[in-house]
């Protein structure tokens, strides 16, 4: 067999990975304690690939370093690995165009994403591909390898749902479409004019992202410079089939394992499948990466232990557990379906279920972790509870005594920052935990919107519902807008305007005018304008007098301001809904500053007296079911209760008058 070449690169530059695992390339993330790239290379080698080109753009040096240390670069390796790096590899298209320019391939090659974990035997597919090529030269350019896995199968994730129409006999692909957001599937009629009388429409296939390509594929990418992804390529070929005459076929495999670790949901799935030995012969105890000290024992219920593991008295490893070398586990722990990396220290009475803990993690006593990922060097202090789908990124310190709600992502690295700077590594140790909690909290909220990966939707029909309910409780306090930048800048501008208004005694009409023009400049919705305005005004005393002022000082500063700017508020708070939004925003501000809750009543009273807020609005807000513990606590505040009572009486008496 001629040399087959393969390309690995970080797939489509998924933001999730970039944000969360800032310090590592996706290909180097440990999956069952072995880097993902090793799984892919092992798969390629086992299929008989003799030469592999690894294309990478981002973090190339780390990948190179890893490969040089690995068995793939030893002289005995049956698979010669070349690493080719360039900053310009932004997509599959760029890579393949470069392949064409450099003329790296002359014969059929295998195209694989760098995050494929598989043990599929592709020899039959290769044979079929060759046969087709022999019969009709230059017609069939690609054979995609797909795995049969019906809807609901664990290795399927919604993002990768595809619908394929194919010719029943020749297995030629006639139509290929991502089906994620579609309710109805549409097939153009021309695909049924191919002369065949039997077609298959299949929704039970998982694209393993392993494709056997002929050299033309690279040429075609050069010819069509607008092809970026494989999806573009396949769609483009199918649409232009009549003109170009190129065909794509597929090979459906029933057994064998193939999945792409494209997000955290898949990370969870593939990790647990590896431990449950679905990817045999690639199993943890095989030590296929042939790294020293990686060898481990395999005992009943799929419990794997590397060397130097110590387990405290009364601790249980129930099933599907992999523990890395020199990891120490305290007493009375319960561990199931979990991977723990090397050199971790885990305290007493810890419960871990479906946890993926990487290297050098410290977990203190009485911690509970459910279905979460904990990256390198994280420290989890005692009595922390991680609910489902949490991620603690590198070097995070959490706790003690906090419970992270579902889907929280904690990272030392801000999502908005560019990822090429490494200096935020130093941020970590000097700051106190309280500050970090505050900072990370904000990120958790951002994470909600951009981090759907770990959420497994059991019932696909209710997708939209679950998403809404997840994000909603935070909406009041933080406008969840994708353009966080604009909102922030806007907030600063409003603050500046008001400050100036105060200094130069500008009339309220002009302030409104300025705020409105800012609103258009940053494309902010009216609702957000109001929320931000409230926030800015309420935080105004802190900015003026410093964050440490007492509640009394705070209110004495704030109330004159409210009075002064009442016309501005009135301009924005008109409808009942506006009042509710306004109140929600206030609630958000005060929730962040527990010490100043007493001032809330005064603010409300003042706003009520200034006729910015009406009693119905306040009552409605108060009676609204609150979602978080804290806001419930807020509502139980003595002063607030009195105020509400007073309001109620006032209302009744006013009704009585009429």
């Amino acid at each position: 067999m001629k040399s087959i070449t393969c390309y690995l690169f970080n797939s489509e530059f998924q933001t999730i990975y970039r944000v969360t695992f800032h310090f590592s390339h996706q290909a180097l993330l440990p999956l069952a304690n072995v880097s993902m790239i090793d799984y892919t290379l092992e798969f390629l080698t086992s299929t008989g690939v003799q030469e592999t080109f690894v294309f990478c753009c981002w973090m190339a040096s780390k990948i190179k370093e890893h490969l040089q240390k690995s068995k793939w670069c030893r002289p005995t390796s049956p698979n010669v690995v070349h690493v080719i790096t360039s900053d310009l590899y932004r997509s599959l298209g760029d890579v393949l165009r470069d392949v064409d320019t450099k003329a790296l391939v002359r014969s059929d090659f295998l195209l694989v994403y760098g995050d494929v974990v598989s043990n599929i035997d592709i020899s039959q597919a290769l044979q079929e591909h060759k046969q087709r090529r022999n019969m009709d030269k230059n017609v069939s350019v690609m054979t995609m390898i797909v795995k049969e896995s019906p809807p609901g199968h664990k290795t399927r994730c919604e993002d990768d749902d595809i619908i394929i129409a194919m010719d029943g006999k020749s297995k030629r692909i006639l139509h290929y479409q991502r089906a994620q957001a579609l309710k109805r599937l549409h097939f153009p009629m021309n695909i049924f004019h191919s002369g065949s009388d039997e077609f298959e429409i299949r929704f039970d296939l998982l694209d393993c992202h392993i494709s056997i390509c002929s050299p033309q594929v690279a040429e075609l990418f050069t010819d069509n410079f607008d092809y970026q992804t494989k999806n573009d390529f396949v769609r483009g070929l199918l649409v232009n089939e009549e003109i170009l005459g190129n065909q794509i076929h597929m090979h459906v495999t029933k057994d064998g394992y193939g999945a792409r670790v494209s997000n955290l949901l898949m990370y969870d799935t593939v990790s647990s499948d590896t431990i449950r030995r679905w990817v045999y012969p690639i199993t943890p105890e095989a030590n296929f990466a042939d790294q020293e000290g990686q060898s481990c024992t395999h005992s009943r219920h799929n419990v794997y232990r590397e060397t130097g593991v110590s387990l405290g008295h009364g601790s249980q490893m129930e099933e599907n557990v992999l523990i890395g070398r020199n990891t120490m586990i305290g007493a009375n722990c319960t561990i199931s379906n979990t991977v723990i990396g090397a050199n971790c220290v885990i305290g007493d009475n810890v419960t871990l279920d479906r946890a993926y803990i990487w290297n050098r993690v410290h977990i203190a006593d009485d911690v509970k972790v459910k279905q979460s990922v904990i990256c390198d060097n994280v420290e989890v202090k005692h009595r922390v509870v991680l609910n489902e789908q949490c991620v603690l990124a590198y070097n995070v310190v959490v706790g003690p005594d906090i419970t992270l709600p579902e889907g929280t992502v904690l990272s030392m690295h801000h999502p908005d920052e560019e990822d090429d700077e490494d200096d935020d590594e130093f941020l970590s140790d000097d700051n106190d935990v309280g500050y970090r909690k505050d900072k990370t909290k904000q990120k958790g909220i951002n994470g909600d919107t951009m981090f759907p990966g770990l959420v497994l939707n059991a019932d696909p029909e209710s997708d939209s519902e679950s998403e809404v309910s997840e994000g909603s409780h935070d909406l009041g306090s933080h406008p969840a807008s994708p353009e966080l930048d604009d909102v922030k800048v806007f907030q600063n501008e409003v603050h500046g305007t008001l400050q100036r208004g105060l200094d130069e005694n500008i009339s309220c009409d002009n302030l409104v005018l300025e705020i409105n023009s800012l609103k258009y400049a940053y494309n902010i919705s009216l609702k957000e304008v109001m929320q931000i305005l409230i926030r800015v005004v309420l935080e105004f005393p802190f900015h003026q007098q410093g964050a440490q002022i007492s509640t009394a000082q705070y209110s004495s500063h704030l109330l004159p301001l409210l009075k002064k700017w009442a016309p501005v508020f009135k301009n924005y708070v008109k409808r009942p809904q506006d009042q509710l939004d306004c109140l929600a925003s206030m609630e958000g501000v005060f929730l962040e500053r527990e010490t100043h809750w007493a001032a809330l009543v005064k603010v409300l009273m003042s706003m009520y007296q200034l006729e910015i807020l009406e009693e119905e609005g306040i009552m409605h807000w108060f009676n609204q079911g609150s979602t978080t513990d804290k806001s419930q606590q807020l509502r139980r505040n003595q002063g607030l209760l009195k105020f509400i009572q007073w309001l109620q009486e006032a209302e009744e008496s006013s009704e009585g008058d009429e």
Partner: protein
Amino acid sequence: MELQAVLMAAGGGSRMMDLTYNTPKPLLPVGNRPLIWYPLNLLERVGFEEVIVITTKEVQKALSTDQRLKTDVKLRLDVVCIQEEADMGTADALRHIQQKIKTDILVVSCDLITDVALHEVVDLFRAHSATLSILMSKVHEFTETVPGQKGKKKAGEQRDFVGVDVTGKRLLFMANEADLDEGLVLRKSIMRKHPRMLIKTGLLDGHLYCLKRSVVDFLVHNKCVTSIRGELVPYLVRKQFSKSLNSQNATEDSEKNQKQQDAHHNLELLSTSKDEALLQLARERSCWNDHRGDMSEAYHGGKLRCYVHIMEEGMCYRVNTLAAYIEANRVVPKLFEDPPIHPAAVVSERSLVGSDSIIGPLCQISDKTSIKRSNVGTSTTIKEKVKITNSIIMNGVTIEEGCNIQGSVICNNAVIGRGADIKYCLVGSGQHVEPEAERTNEVIVGSDQLMEI
């Protein structure tokens, strides 16, 4: 009685008017038997004792007089006449006889000639407690030249797209190419339930349906449905996957709405009738499931199910075009063990009748005549030195001396003049072809018939 058989024999044969303008389609001779005999025989073979025949007055008369039908068919025929002018569809006809229908029904069209093992269709119906099960077959290519047809006819007819699940039994989708201008559209929820759908074209619909009794009730309430194949079947196939069976046009007045709801109610009733509780229990207690993969209950909880039996082998023709008629005539005689030459026929010893031909009763075939690969009907007279190949001669035809007939269809009571040379022609009923005429690839019918078209 599990199933009542209903034979639809009132169709006019509108796609082969040249043949049917004065012989009703059910009476067209195929292999020297009237067409209607074949579905009757099919039913009789599997043990039906009674059949409701929906037909016209004319056919009814023929049924009561035709000796051969009388002796051959042991079935008790319950003949229901409908008026020809009424232009009733098949669904209308079912509505017409609803009083007679007590159980589930098996509807057969009179132009079906098949050797299908009928229990295959019925078993699907029984096993899945289906609402509908139908028969389909792979289309046979017609090889014979068709008289009066210029060139090889292309597949001008629009194809039916039939979608079945991976077992090839469950009917998931049905549409005609003509209705798919915008492309084929499937709901994702269907694909989720049946992730692997085979779309087949090139299937022949046998127009044989097993229908639940309640479907007839549904028809009674929904007068707008006129045809089984055109409207009812596609409706049922679609309804399999609709969430609520109660969708109606908002525009219609409330009374009608009420009626429709009743009808829909009935449609749901169909599965909850008598044994349904037991069936449900059986399904709950059993580990059987109709699908794999997800863990949902059998049939995904759907109450309405349509199935199709697709014949991979065997013979299945629908005699609704001239080409099909000719093809059926070729193939059918091989099925019977009847002697090719009827004992009541008079065949001269000095004539040559090939073993691939059949000769009907009371025929007279004179000296020096040769007949190859042809069917000759009842009471036909063929004079001397006639050469007939690849042709169908119906009843009461007279062929004078020295004619040469090749690849043609000669209808009832036609007279072919002496020495005529006819190739690939269709000679209509009662037509006279003048002596010494030379005709090729023509349709010879009377002027009155032309007017009618």
